C-alpha cells in the first residue's frame, strides 16, 4: 500500500488551471493563501463566547488551539468555518472577506459529536466532500472519482474504503474525516480535538499525516488537549481563554508563563 500522497515539492510548474486544487505546490502559493483573523468576537444568544482574537497564518503551517474547557476553541473553529455568525471583527481568506462557507475551508467535528452508526461506508463519506463541486444535479465524474481515490490513498484508507464507518477505530475515523476534507479540495482544515481518544500508534500515524498535509501546503488548525505533544506536532500555538492569550510559533510563545495565563 502506498503511503502518503505524492510529494510535489519538485513540481515548479504547479499548474493552477484548477486553482482550487491544493494538492502539492509546496510553499509556492502559500503567500496568496493567507488567513487573517482580525479582532474576532463571537456571541451565543448575547453571551460573549469569544473575543479579541487576532492572528495571521498561511498555507503550510499547523496551529494548535490551546485552552481550558469552555475557552472558545470549538467556537473559534466553527466561526472560521462559517458555522456560527461572527459578532465583531472579520476573517479574510486569500485577502477576501469570508461571508459564507467555502469549500476551501473544511470543518472536521469532534468524533464524539458524530453518529458513527450512520449507514455509510468510508468511501461514501469521503465522496461527500465532492458535494461543493457537484451540487444537486451534476453527475459524479471520472474527475471526482480520481480525487476521492487520491484522498483515500493519502489517508491510507484504500483497504478500508468499503467498510462501514461504524466498524472503524478512532484513528481510522479521524483519517476518514481528513480524507473527506481532501476530497473537498480544502486548503484549510479546521479540526476539533483530532488527537483526543486515540491510542499511541494512531496518534503517531496522525502526526505523520499532519506533517505530510502541511508540507503539501495546507493550513491545519486543530484544538488540542495534550499540552505535552504540542511542540512535536504543531508549528504555531494560539492560547485561548475566552479571549486570545497569546499567538505565535510554539518555540517562542508556548512557555510556562503563557500557559499559566490560559489555565
Amino acid at each position: 500500500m502506498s503511503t502518503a500522497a505524492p510529494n510535489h515539492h519538485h513540481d515548479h510548474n504547479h499548474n493552477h488551471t484548477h486553482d482550487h486544487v491544493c494538492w502539492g505546490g509546496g510553499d509556492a502559493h502559500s503567500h496568496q493563501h493567507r488567513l487573517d483573523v482580525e479582532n474576532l468576537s463571537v456571541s451565543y444568544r448575547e453571551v460573549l463566547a469569544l473575543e479579541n482574537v487576532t492572528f495571521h497564518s498561511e498555507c503550510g503551517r499547523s496551529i494548535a488551539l490551546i485552552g481550558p474547557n469552555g475557552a472558545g476553541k470549538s467556537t473559534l473553529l466553527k466561526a472560521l468555518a462559517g458555522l456560527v455568525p461572527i459578532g465583531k471583527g472579520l476573517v479574510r481568506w486569500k485577502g477576501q472577506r469570508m461571508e459564507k462557507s467555502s469549500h476551501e475551508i473544511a470543518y472536521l467535528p469532534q468524533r464524539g459529536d458524530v453518529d458513527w452508526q450512520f449507514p455509510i461506508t468510508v468511501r461514501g463519506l469521503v465522496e461527500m466532500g465532492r458535494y461543493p463541486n457537484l451540487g444537486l444535479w451534476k453527475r459524479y465524474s471520472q474527475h471526482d472519482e480520481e480525487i476521492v481515490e487520491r484522498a483515500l490513498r493519502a489517508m491510507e484508507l484504500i483497504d478500508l474504503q468499503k467498510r462501514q464507518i461504524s466498524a472503524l477505530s478512532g484513528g481510522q475515523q479521524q483519517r476518514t474525516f481528513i480524507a473527506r476534507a481532501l476530497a473537498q479540495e480544502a486548503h484549510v482544515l479546521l479540526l476539533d480535538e483530532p488527537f483526543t481518544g486515540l491510542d499511541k500508534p494512531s496518534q503517531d500515524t496522525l502526526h505523520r499525516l499532519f506533517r505530510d498535509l502541511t508540507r503539501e501546503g495546507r493550513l491545519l488548525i486543530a484544538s488540542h488537549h495534550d499540552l505535552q505533544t504540542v511542540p512535536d506536532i504543531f508549528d504555531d500555538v494560539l492560547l485561548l481563554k475566552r479571549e486570545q492569550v497569546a499567538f505565535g510559533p510554539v518555540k517562542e510563545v508556548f512557555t510556562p508563563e503563557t500557559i499559566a495565563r490560559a489555565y
Partner: protein
Amino acid sequence: MTTTFYDFLSESIARRALLACALFGFANGFMSAFVVLRKSALKMGTLSHGLLPGIALAVLLLGLSSWSALAGAIFAAMFIGLGSIFMSRTSRLDEDTTLAILYTTAFAGGLILLQHVATRQKLDEWLFGSIAGMSDTDLWIAFGTSVIAVLTLTALQRPLLIYLFEPNVAASLGVPVRLLNYTLFGIMILMLVSSLQAVGCILSVGLMVTPGATVYLWSDNPRMIFLGGGIIGCLGAVSAFFLSYPLGWGIGSTIVLVLGALFLIAYIFSPRYGILAHWNRK
C-alpha cells in the same frame, strides 16, 4: 366467502382503498427512512397528535373538506412546532418539555372540539382513520402529496444524506441546511396530513417510522434504505388490506400491525443487526 370478497373488490370504494394503501404505504415508507435517520420519530409522534386540534378547528370554522383539514393541520403543526421552540427559548424549559405540553394540551382541546362538531363515529375516523371512506378527490390529493414527497426527497438525496449525517459538516460544505430542514419538515407534515385519513392521527406515526426502521436493520446502504422503506411500506399496507377484510379488522390498525410484525422479524432475524446474529457473535 371468496365470491363476496371479489364482489367487495369490484366496488369502487374498495379499489380506491387498495390504491390508497399502496400509495400511502410507499410514500410513507420512503419517507420513514429519513425520519429514522434524522432520529425524529418521537417528534413525528407529537406532531401527528397536534394536527388533530387544527383539523377540528378548521372543520368547525370552514366546514369539512380535505382542503380545510389540510389547512388546519398545517396551521396546528406550525403553531405547535414553532411555539415549542419559542417557549423553550424564552423559559428555562427544554424543547421536548414544551413540545409535550403544547401537543397534549392541543390534543385534549381537539378531542373536545371534535366531540361537539362530530359524531362518535367521525371522531374515531380522525383518530384511527377511515381508508374505506375516501373519495376520488381524497385519492387525488393523496396521489399528489405522495408524488411530491417522493420526488422531492429523491431530488434532494445528495445534500440530505450529508445533512442527516452531520449538520455542521453539511453546512461547511455549502448545503443549505436551514432550507433543507424546513423542506423536510414540510414534507413530513404533508405526508402526515394525507395519511391521517388512511390510518388516523394516532397510528400514522407507525406508518411513518416502522418501515424505515425495519430496512435500517437489514441494510447499510442509504439508497437501499429509502427504496426498501417504500417497498416494505407498500407491501405491508397492501397485504394488510387483504388481511383486514376476511378478519374483519380495521384497515388502519391492520396496516400498522403488519408493519410492526415485519419489523419484529427484522429485529430478530436480520443477519447483520438482528438480535440472533448479535447473540451468535457473543
